[in-house]
């Protein structure tokens, strides 16, 4: 077997030289984070009645669903024995944080997201069912579960259940992503991961990335449809993004300052890693480009009066930079956590492959897939039709 060893500096335990988790595992928390964040933005409108973000409510739900459907795929692709993954449901090891993923995922997908979207869209689905013919008629009929009761009482009930679901959904979204943080944060063998702050940091970075993603999706779809941007909506989302980002950044800085001040046995190794192998992805991309710059841009909008055009540009660039920064954060956690030896005496390197099972190509495809799913969802369930609350139907 011809084997090219990664470049090692210092001493690694021999079994540590090769990285175990690749870019696919970077995608997993990134995608799950977008789901949780998008859902929390949607919940704002529903539970807290933030009228301004209404134009993004359905779009946020569909975005969350599109990404949630893709979330388990990188894990599945990464497994040495994908055909055995069902065992996680059939014979889960209850002490394992990872074993609970399947259950948290299914709960969130089926109970929260699909049901909430269905209830919100039921009237539209029934109307589309009545108006269409051929296979489309059958499809919408199936989606309506062949029940066409959209009387005022039924719709009022839908609304009540939908609201209750959102209330359950918020802690579920917190659970979904806090749990992903726990998978890393609970590994005591790895000081780069092992901190009780990890689930909280993951959660807030998820909210940040989800809000940024929905904001960008809204802007792109509005531009595509040649509609005017709802600036009140964008300004509100921009403000939420700024607040969430401030909390997220404070938490990450707290973690950093704590590590520097405490300077435990792992500190020197980690410090060296951040200043060398992780410098570009951590300091330049994550902290400067992906955090400080978008934070400054968003803060500027809060502080100074700007024209609509400038604000639009700022939101677009801050959104893109934010997503880049959060992706870099996932990268630095997952890949960074494997670059140093648990002996703290050396470093290895990660060489990304291209057209292999865990290479860049499948990762890029997996990253594009949610957008394709979102396009299909938007086609089937247009989020910008006037809602019943606007038309007054079923308001009784």
């Amino acid at each position, binding site marked *: 077997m011809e084997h090219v060893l990664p470049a090692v500096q210092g001493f690694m335990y021999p079994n540590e030289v090769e990285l175990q988790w690749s870019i696919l595992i970077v995608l997993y928390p990134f995608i799950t984070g977008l789901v949780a964040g998008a859902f929390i933005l949607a919940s704002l409108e529903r539970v807290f009645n933030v009228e301004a973000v209404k134009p993004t409510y359905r779009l946020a739900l569909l975005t969350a669903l599109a990404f949630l459907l893709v979330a388990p795929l990188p894990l599945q692709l990464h497994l040495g024995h994908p055909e055995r993954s069902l065992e996680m449901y059939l014979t889960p090891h209850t002490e394992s944080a990872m074993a609970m993923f399947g259950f948290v995922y299914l709960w969130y997908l089926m109970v929260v997201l699909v049901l909430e979207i269905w209830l919100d869209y039921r009237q539209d689905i029934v109307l589309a069912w009545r108006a269409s013919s051929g296979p489309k008629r059958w499809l919408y009929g199936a989606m309506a579960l062949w029940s066409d009761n959209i009387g005022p009482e039924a719709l009022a009930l839908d609304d009540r259940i939908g609201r209750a679901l959102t209330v359950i959904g918020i802690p579920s979204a917190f659970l979904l992503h806090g749990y992903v943080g726990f998978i890393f944060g609970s590994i005591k*063998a790895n000081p780069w991961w092992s901190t009780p702050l990890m689930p909280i940091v993951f959660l807030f970075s998820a909210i940040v990335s989800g809000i940024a993603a929905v904001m960008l999706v809204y802007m792109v779809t509005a531009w595509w449809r040649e509609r005017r941007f709802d600036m009140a909506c964008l300004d509100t989302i921009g403000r939420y993004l700024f607040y969430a980002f401030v909390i997220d950044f404070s938490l990450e800085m707290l973690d950093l300052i704590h590590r520097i001040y405490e300077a435990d046995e792992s500190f020197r190794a980690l410090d060296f890693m951040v200043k060398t192998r992780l410098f570009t992805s951590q300091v330049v991309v994550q902290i400067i480009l992906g955090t400080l710059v978008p934070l400054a841009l968003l803060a500027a909008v809060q502080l100074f009066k700007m024209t609509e055009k400038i604000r639009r540009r700022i939101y677009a660039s801050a959104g893109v930079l934010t997503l880049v920064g959060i992706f870099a954060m996932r990268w630095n956690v997952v890949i960074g956590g494997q670059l140093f030896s648990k002996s703290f005496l050396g470093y290895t390197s990660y060489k990304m492959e291209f057209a292999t099972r865990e290479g860049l190509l499948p990762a890029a495809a997996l990253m594009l897939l949610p957008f394709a799913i979102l396009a299909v969802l938007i086609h089937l369930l247009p989020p910008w039709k006037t809602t019943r609350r606007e038309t007054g139907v079923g308001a009784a």
Partner: protein
Amino acid sequence: MNNERRQFLRETGKFLVLTASASVAWEAVLAGRPETAPNYKTADHWWGMVIDIESCIGCGNCVRACKEENDVPRTPTYFRTWVERYRVEPDDLEHPAVDSPNGGFDGFNDRAAADPTAKHFFVPKLCNHCAHSPCVQVCPVGATFESPDGVVLVDKTYCLGCRYCVQACPYGCRFIDPRTNTADKCTLCYHRITKGLTTACCETCPTGARQLGDLKDPKDAIHTFLREHHVLVLKPQMATGAKVYYNGLDGSVR
């Protein structure tokens, strides 16, 4: 439909459902069970190992014997046991110079590295067969488990290859076997010790630096050894209940 036919369908349905669930349940029961050997009762044993640092000469016999006995891939990134060489300046425990070329498989022949002002020693490493194994804790399907006789094993027919256990081991003792895509690690030569033999590494150690011990056997020499020596486990702060005891372990060893 007449009653008899309905009854037949109901009974057949019940039979099928029960058989299917019983077989699924049985599979779950079988998963995470060590292989059995005649005249060997798991409840009668509790395995551990002592390693005497002073006695290890870095010959690499243990590494070669382990790879041979257990069919471990020959690539220098897969080891069930390996030997590290330490060079420590007397006043600088925090910066040891460590190497382990090919895991010590070929021994350590480059005497030129010796430095009379520093101390030199070898540290053989293997799975610590922890009583509270972090690797066992994280396995999502229970494919890796602690056997009742204190050995951490992997059921390769059940392992998903998710690699979470590799991440969770603080000692770097696990790897993914590229031939099976499942987790692999030291089994303490389970196929040998259940037949009354010692492990391949202990068997071939020319100086007796590695000794298998049964902590449940009151006559085992391990008790005397542990009583008469100041022993340590690796990374005691990890609180994993490690059962590989080192005599003469230097504070610089990670």
